[in-house]
């Protein structure tokens, strides 16, 4: 060991507080925007054009509730781990352990899905240029490793990178919309299916479409993971999160409008890259190139944000000894949770190289959905234990308990929608979390320093 180096180092290492509201926006929107570029359109396949729009706006309502609730709680519990830290302080250790796992599983699987998509995109381009049989594996591995390395080197660089590529991907959607509205497209917008075939599979199709409606917004709650690295959490987190959900509501509606108008719903419901396909339908080469780059950037930004969030959740659990404390280390130079970042790389690679895309995404969605359900109970308990006026809040969301009730109702409907298509996966996922909970309760919790994990200098909760 080099004593000289150790004595020069600070006495206590922590994550670096260097981020602003723009980085929070880039983290949240960066993770999500890929859902506009692919995936959401399966909701159209499930129930037709109207069902796709209903899913878009109902899921939008769900995530607006998520963003409002999250903004209030996280502006008060400003710690890495986001919802995990919230659950620890407000509900209890077993809930916190589960929420931590939801987060890590949701983000790691989404990262794997993004890497698979980048491999698929490159294969598509290679095919268009006359090369068949591209080996996607090295590109999938390189994507995960290169982004992990970027995250390893520092949060400012990785989220500044996300800010640039996410902004580009968002602007690409706006440009496509404006171009189509001003007649650049060789094919006119056609919404005749709205009147001719409004609900081809009836109202059940609308419910089934909800599952894929989540794709428009899945992951916006990831902004909370930056809580310990923003300069002013009480201001930046609510601002970045609310700006993020507004951006996504605009992007989602424009995406549905352009794609549904240009592509027949029967094809749109099965398309791999709907926005890129819509650009191809316009016959404009510039738009095609723009939307291809937008797709690649959105996918990269999502994988990058997922690495950031999964590693912070894993790091926080290690720091509290919910997992081995080895994971709670901070890099002395880069000030990142470097061991957690490296540890999650092989897990992402296993899913990216060994599991089918739809299964990986379904497990990610289910973990996210379990997290949203937790948020409803969390919000009720937070307001009951620490009512308004008892602690300082950076943001107070309006109309409580209406957003929490709406969120719970929509979560229930979405569970039913997921059960219709992926019932086995839903049950398998629940079994996994039950087994993990038993392990935590009967074995792991004995290593947790119970007094140290509650760090917020709050007054005693009401009723205790």
């Amino acid at each position, binding site marked *: 060991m080099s004593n000289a180096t150790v004595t020069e180092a600070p006495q206590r290492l922590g994550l670096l507080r260097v981020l602003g509201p723009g980085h929070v926006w880039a983290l949240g929107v960066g993770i999500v925007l890929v859902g506009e570029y692919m995936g959401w359109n399966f909701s159209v396949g499930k129930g037709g054009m109207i069902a796709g729009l209903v899913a878009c706006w109902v899921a939008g309502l769900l995530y607006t509730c998520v963003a409002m609730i999250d903004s209030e709680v996280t502006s008060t519990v400003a*710690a890495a781990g986001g919802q995990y830290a919230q659950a620890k302080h407000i509900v209890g250790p077993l809930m916190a352990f589960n929420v931590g796992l939801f987060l890590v599983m949701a983000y790691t699987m989404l990262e794997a899905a993004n890497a698979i998509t980048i491999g698929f995109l490159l294969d598509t381009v290679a095919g268009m240029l006359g090369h068949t049989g591209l080996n996607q594996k*090295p590109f999938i*591995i*390189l994507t995960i490793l290169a982004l992990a390395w970027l995250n390893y080197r520092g949060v400012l660089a990785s989220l500044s990178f996300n800010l640039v590529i996410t902004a580009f991907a968002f602007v690409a959607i706006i440009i496509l919309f404006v171009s189509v509205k001003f007649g650049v497209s060789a094919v006119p917008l056609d919404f005749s299916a709205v009147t001719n075939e409004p609900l081809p599979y009836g109202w059940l199709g609308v419910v089934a479409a909800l599952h894929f409606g989540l794709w428009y917004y899945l992951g916006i709650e990831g902004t909370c993971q930056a809580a310990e690295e923003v300069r002013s*959490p009480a201001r930046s987190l609510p601002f970045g999160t609310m700006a993020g959900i507004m951006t996504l509501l605009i992007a989602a509606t424009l995406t549905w409008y352009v794609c549904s108008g240009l592509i027949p719903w029967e094809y749109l419901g099965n398309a791999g890259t709907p926005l890129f396909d819509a650009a191809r339908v316009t016959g404009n080469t510039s738009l095609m190139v723009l939307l291809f780059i937008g797709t690649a950037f959105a996918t990269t930004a999502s994988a990058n944000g997922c690495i950031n969030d999964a590693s912070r959740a894993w790091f926080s659990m290690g720091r509290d000894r919910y997992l081995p404390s080895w994971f709670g280390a901070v890099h002395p130079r880069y000030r990142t949770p470097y061991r957690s970042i490296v540890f999650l790389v092989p897990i992402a690679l296993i899913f990216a190289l060994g599991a089918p895309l739809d299964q990986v995404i379904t497990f990610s969605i289910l973990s996210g959905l379990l997290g949203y359900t937790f948020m409803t109970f969390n919000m009720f308990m937070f307001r009951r234990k620490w009512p308004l006026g008892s602690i300082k809040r950076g943001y107070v969301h309006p109309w409580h308990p209406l957003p929490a009730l709406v969120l719970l109702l929509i979560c229930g409907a979405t569970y039913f929608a997921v059960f219709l298509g992926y019932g086995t996966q839903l049950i398998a996922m629940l079994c996994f979390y039950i087994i993990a909970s038993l392990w935590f309760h009967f074995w792991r919790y004995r290593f947790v320093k119970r007094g140290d994990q509650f760090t917020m200098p709050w007054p005693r909760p009401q009723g205790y």
Partner: protein
Amino acid sequence: MDVWNYLEYAAWVLSALVAAIMLIDLIKVDTTYDNELLTSSREGELELTQERHEL
């Protein structure tokens, strides 16, 4: 062999390089610094020093 084959090889090489850089740095840090220092991060330090949660 066309450009895509070369890109595949380049991706393999870059992947190995990035993985090696990360692992070497991790080992170097772990063997240079005391584990107590590396795991000394504590949640909520900002709240303790700057924000009192008082109205």
